[in-house]
């Protein structure tokens, strides 16, 4: 945990109306590492993830206090442009959500909205992103076909390719393989490990083995609080808190 810090969260509280969903969350996310968030359903993992690209802003009645620093800059500060923030901090969702358009247009959507118009440049980006997402060989002959015709695992890798095409710095993943079969899950996990070379990744998962397999450090959430945050190895072998141990050994949750 001595690597450089990419995201620093301090004293973060979030309320849905009068319900407090996050309590005094403090965490430091390392650059070019994989940070896993584990914990029982409804404990605030996804809510926390969505505070990192301000996707909670769209929900009525959400109130946030505290600080989230991205490269030292407060993302809830006045100078932060949400659209620019979300280009830097991208997200992969629980259920694959490709747009109802062709495979090519899905990947080209991001670059297009950010101003890339030239066809040859778009072709390059699309191919590179699909290759990086380990999907190119499977779809190179059907780029013009609808993305809805792909399998669930392919759709999720397409969503990752679509994200890579906008060249984010941070990738948030909300249970990216929970809707997929074991083989697709394996593909996604391999992919996540490869992406670590270039991106900072924060991943929410319900799958203990997945957290243990892919992540460098792990945070255990319970009732909106981080109970324990340490190197993954430490969390899974010698947790300090009894509740963490109970959870990872399957005694509750």
């Amino acid at each position, binding site marked *: 945990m001595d690597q450089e810090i990419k995201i620093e969260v301090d004293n973060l509280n979030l309320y849905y109306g009068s319900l407090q969903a996050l309590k005094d969350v403090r965490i430091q996310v390392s650059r070019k590492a994989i940070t896993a968030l584990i914990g029982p359903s409804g404990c605030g993992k996804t809510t926390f993830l969505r505070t990192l690209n301000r996707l909670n802003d769209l929900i009525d009645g959400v109130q946030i206090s505290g600080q989230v620093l991205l490269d030292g800059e407060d993302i809830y500060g006045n100078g932060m442009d949400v659209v620019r923030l979300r280009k830097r901090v991208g997200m992969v969702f629980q259920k694959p959500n490709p747009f109802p358009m062709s495979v090519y247009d899905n990947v080209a959507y991001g670059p297009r909205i950010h101003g890339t118009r030239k066809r040859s440049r778009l072709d390059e980006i699309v191919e590179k992103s699909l290759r990086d997402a380990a999907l190119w060989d499977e779809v190179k002959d059907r780029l013009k076909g609808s993305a809805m015709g792909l399998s669930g695992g392919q759709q999720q890798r397409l969503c990752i390719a*679509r994200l890579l095409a906008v060249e984010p710095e941070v990738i948030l993943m909300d249970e990216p393989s929970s809707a997929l079969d074991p083989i697709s899950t394996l593909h996604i996990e391999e992919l996540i490990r490869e992406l670590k070379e270039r991106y900072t990744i924060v991943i929410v998962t319900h799958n203990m083995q997945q957290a243990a397999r892919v992540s460098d450090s792990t945070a255990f959430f319970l009732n909106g609080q981080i109970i324990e945050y340490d190197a993954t190895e430490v969390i899974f072998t010698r947790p300090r808190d009894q509740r963490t141990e109970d959870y990872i050994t399957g005694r509750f949750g």
Partner: protein
Amino acid sequence: MSRFRRRKLVNYVMLGLAGVCTAIVLVPLVSLLALVISRGLAGLNLEFFTQLPKPVGEPGGGMANAIVGTLTMVTMACILGLPVGILAGTYLSEFGRGPLAGTVRFMSDVLTGVPSIVVGIFVNVVVVIRTGHFSAYAGALALAIIMIPLVTRTTEEMLRMVPNSLREASLALGATRARTVGSIVYRSASAGLITGSLLAVARVAGETAPLLFTALNNRFWHHTLSEPIASLPVYIYRYAISPYKDWQQQAWTAALVLVLMVLTTSVAARIAVSLRK
């Protein structure tokens, strides 16, 4: 009777009822179409589409001016009404929060319930009396006022059916909300938006009452949009209640042409949607 047999029996009875009700729904539709076709076909010829109406007693003549008039006013109503309706519906579904959205939604529902003849009188007072003459644009305005609430509410419903996950996917890529609506939400809802708009077009294409106070009628060709203009529904109304046999025949034929026009538009739009996918 065993519980299982009773459940099966209820199942069959309900299925049967649903079938009977479907048949009852189809009876008026099929018999209406059959009647319009059988009565209208007799007067359907090239002349009907190319010639002006003839005075009483003179055989022949057509309703070319009324066909063009209806097309003109419905097109103008679409140009006025569709963008307003679709954008208002977009506001309600995507951006509207709080009291303003609630008010717009409520007013829109009220406006949907206003009888079309009242809309005609309203436009008569506001436009016809002010300008001093009946006109095509007054007619088109009345039709647009009828269209707007219909389009607004169907647009809202259709856009609400687009899953939120698509909006979030687009926003998470750094798209603005406007871009997300324009590129993702509209595209996902396109079939529904077109169906909703067509229903509104079909509805106003047959409106008679509001046109009586606004566009009036015209036995001849109109030369500008600021003079009275003929339309199929008004001609159907006038000819159907006339005592002359050949006028009544013309009314049936006009009804058939009107039905065909609405049908062709909606079939064409559906083909266009399916080709784009």
